[in-house]
């Protein structure tokens, strides 16, 4: 009896572990081929739709825009200049009102189980895609709700007089007035080209809504399946006009929980993870890379220029000089953000490297306060936003740091906070003295940073919470929109930023970054400065082979 039990006990765990190692073993051995040709991306949310025209949510554009579709033109290179895409070239008339696009003639749409294209991309597809947005009587305009938020906010419909098809591969946009941000808007992730043939086919079948559920585009990947709240599966579009993508399968593993995303990343269950937490943990792993790009946003400290004492330029300057921005970036952003010199991030093409920056100089701040007549200092309110945003991960801590900084020049700060919607409502009513907020740009177009945030018209609608209105500044913005000459525009914006730096309606603090983590075996750019991510360039390498190569190199 004793023998029986004695022999039984050690064998059981042994058996189990043998079983486990067997499974894991054959797992690693055989799956390599499949996993080497595929990438799993842990994304932070589900897309609302499969047509980016209908949405401005970053999660949606990330998931679909650059994977499934192309736009006429794109941003390229380090300086983010406009380059060709579906349109191989384009021409803008001198008055800026007629823009002609010459389309590529070798672009194939996706072939899937639900649609087989019979022709290549042509001007009809472009017409179809934009008329859906512009023409209220278009058969597809009201499909999926009839809301096109990006195009409505940029006044796209008001701007375009009409779109003309010159021939099968030439298309012309005729504008009511010249607007240099127009071309830029066509390069966003929202202005994608749908298939007119597919639209027609669905219309004949009586199921037009499927165009936004079962997408057909020209992008590097084609849609395979979507399980609500769980995954999106893409396969490679083999006849992609720019050449095949390097991976065959792309899976978006929708993982809402930040901890789960990290767990999956650490356990190697996803190759790439969006917005990772615990950066220190990732950094200490040799098989993971943490990468980031400075995205187009700015976190700032704004002053209500309609209220005492901030109606005085000198006070605004003094307060700005007294704030140690670097300390804020180290504490609040954990040194993971770029210090903002002005409201426009350095990654914007319109950014002028000579832009002056308000430095940190408490001594000068003190003397400026004396000149302004506040030698004894004063007491002020500081409204800190209650929620976490990319541009400001912790406004309360930031407010406490500002409080400490201003104490040194004799200014007492009272920190105020409300529930988010109340906060915004009371801000737009102008009840505050100063506030912490930020701006996430919708487009890479520099105007998006200036007009909505600081123009006179924005101060009327309450979106400009500084209520600062400067005619000269507004004039510069208008001029910048009228011309398409990039150098000229850059000069205008540089002047505008100089005015901001002088007038100080707000103190720009940081341009925060967008983070992503990936295994070292994934190579190729995924993040881009503007808009959504793209897996076209991404590929898997065999890390073991790489290690072998290195050994060989060393021995040689």
């Amino acid at each position, binding site marked *: 009896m004793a023998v029986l039990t004695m022999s039984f006990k050690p064998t059981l765990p042994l058996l189990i572990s043998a079983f486990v190692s067997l499974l894991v073993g054959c797992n690693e051995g055989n799956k390599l081929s499949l996993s080497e040709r595929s990438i799993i991306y842990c994304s932070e949310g589900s897309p609302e739709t499969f047509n980016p025209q209908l949405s401005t949510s970053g999660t949606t554009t990330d998931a679909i825009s650059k994977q499934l579709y192309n736009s006429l033109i794109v941003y390229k290179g380090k300086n983010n200049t406009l380059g060709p895409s579906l349109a191989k070239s384009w021409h803008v008339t001198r008055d800026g009102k007629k823009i002609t696009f010459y389309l590529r003639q070798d672009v194939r749409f996706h072939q899937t189980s639900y649609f087989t294209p019979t022709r290549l991309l042509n001007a009809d597809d472009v017409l179809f895609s934009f008329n859906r947005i512009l023409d209220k009587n278009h058969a597809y305009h009201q499909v999926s709700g009839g809301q096109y938020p990006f195009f409505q906010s940029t006044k796209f419909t008001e701007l375009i007089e009409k779109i003309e098809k010159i021939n099968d591969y030439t298309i012309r946009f005729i504008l009511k007035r010249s607007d240099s941000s127009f071309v830029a808007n066509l390069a966003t992730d929202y202005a994608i080209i749908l298939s007119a043939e597919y639209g027609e086919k669905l219309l004949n079948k009586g199921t037009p809504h499927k165009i936004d559920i079962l997408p057909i585009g020209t992008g590097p990947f084609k849609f395979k399946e979507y399980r609500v709240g769980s995954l999106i599966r893409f396969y490679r579009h083999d006849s992609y006009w720019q050449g095949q993508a390097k991976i065959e399968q792309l899976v978006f593993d929708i993982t809402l929980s*930040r*901890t789960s995303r*990290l*767990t999956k990343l*650490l356990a190697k269950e996803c190759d790439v993870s969006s917005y990772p*937490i*615990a950066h*220190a*943990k990732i950094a200490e792993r040799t098989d993971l890379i943490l990468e980031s790009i400075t995205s187009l946003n700015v976190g700032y400290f704004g002053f209500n220029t309609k209220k005492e004492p901030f109606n005085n330029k000198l006070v605004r300057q003094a307060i700005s000089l007294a704030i140690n921005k670097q300390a804020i970036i180290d504490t609040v952003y954990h040194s993971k953000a770029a210090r903002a010199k002005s409201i426009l991030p350095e990654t914007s093409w319109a950014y002028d490297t000579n832009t002056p920056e308000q430095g940190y100089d408490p001594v000068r701040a003190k003397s400026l306060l004396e000149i302004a007549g506040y030698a004894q200092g004063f007491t002020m309110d500081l409204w800190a936003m209650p929620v976490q945003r990319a541009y400001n991960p912790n406004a309360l*801590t930031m407010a*406490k740091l500002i409080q400490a900084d201003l104490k040194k020049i004799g200014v007492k700060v009272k920190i105020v906070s409300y529930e988010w919607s109340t906060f915004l409502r009371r801000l737009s009513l102008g009840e505050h003295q100063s506030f912490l907020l930020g701006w996430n740009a919708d487009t890479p177009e520099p105007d998006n940073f200036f007009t909505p945030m600081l123009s006179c018209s924005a101060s009327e609608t309450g979106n400009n919470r500084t209520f600062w209105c400067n005619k000269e500044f507004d004039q510069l913005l208008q001029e910048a929109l009228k011309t398409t000459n990039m150098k000229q525009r850059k000069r205008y914006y540089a002047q505008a930023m100089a005015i901001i730096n002088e007038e100080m309606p707000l103190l720009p603090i940081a341009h925060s970054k967008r983070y992503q983590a990936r295994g070292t075996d994934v190579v190729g750019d995924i993040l881009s400065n503007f808009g959504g991510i793209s897996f076209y360039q991404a590929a898997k390498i065999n890390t073991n082979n790489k290690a072998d190569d290195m050994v060989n190199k060393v021995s040689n």
Partner: protein
Amino acid sequence: MAREKIYLEEVFPSPFMQLWRIFRKTPVAMVGFCCFILLILLAIFAPIISPYSPVDGNLDMILLPPAWHVDGNVSYLLGTDELGRDMLSRLMYGTSLTFGLSFIVVFFSLVIGVVIGSLSALTRGIKSSFLNHFLDVVLSIPSLLLAIIIVAILGPGISNTVWAIAIVFIPQFIHITRYAVKEEFRKDYVLASRLDGASNFRILYYSVFPNIVERLMSQATLAQSAAILDIATLGFLGLGAQIPLPEWGAILANGLERFYIAPWTVYLPGLAILFAVVATNLVGEGIRHALKLRKEN
């Protein structure tokens, strides 16, 4: 009644005292019992003895590891969480929520269950059969599932959790009281007092209850260990105690976000739950063991 005093000289301990004497001799059970008492004291006095507030944090002391760690700080013995709240204080307060509430819940269900159970023990026939089937159905559904169902109906929150668990635990006490009372009623001493003309209620109160109290206690410890786990699980799932309440399960769920950089915010509340459940189970085991020994004697 006065006669009892005369017989007190001939020491014949009550069943409960007999049990206690046997229980006392089992060291493991006594360790469990001491821990159990400690937890009760903690649950009562947590607000007085905890060094810091469980809700307000010190932003200068964010994510401090426990004191024995190289980066630890002795004034924060078990470290702090992401808002600089002292883990020790939070866990102490958590004792009154997770452990204290489970104790109250079980006591409440016990009283109601005993009342209904003893009343039903005195009925027979269809009503009795119906109750039996009903209890069978209810008892076959796990307590946690029932609690989740009730919380789903009432909505998340600590008070709803407490109600849900209290309701869920009543049937088992009805069941055990019913059986125990029925069994005792068949015994000769009950017949004796019945012949003396005692009413059913009098028999229940003076004759039956003293004999079944330890069985109820044994069931209560089982129920309490389940209650602790249920409250913590619901808290963990976000259906029970809501942030910032320092309920152990909720603390653990809150720490999940920083599982990989501050693991103590996850393993400490887990250990606290384990400790409380083990202590309760040890007491229960001790009682059952003692019951068995008493029967054998």
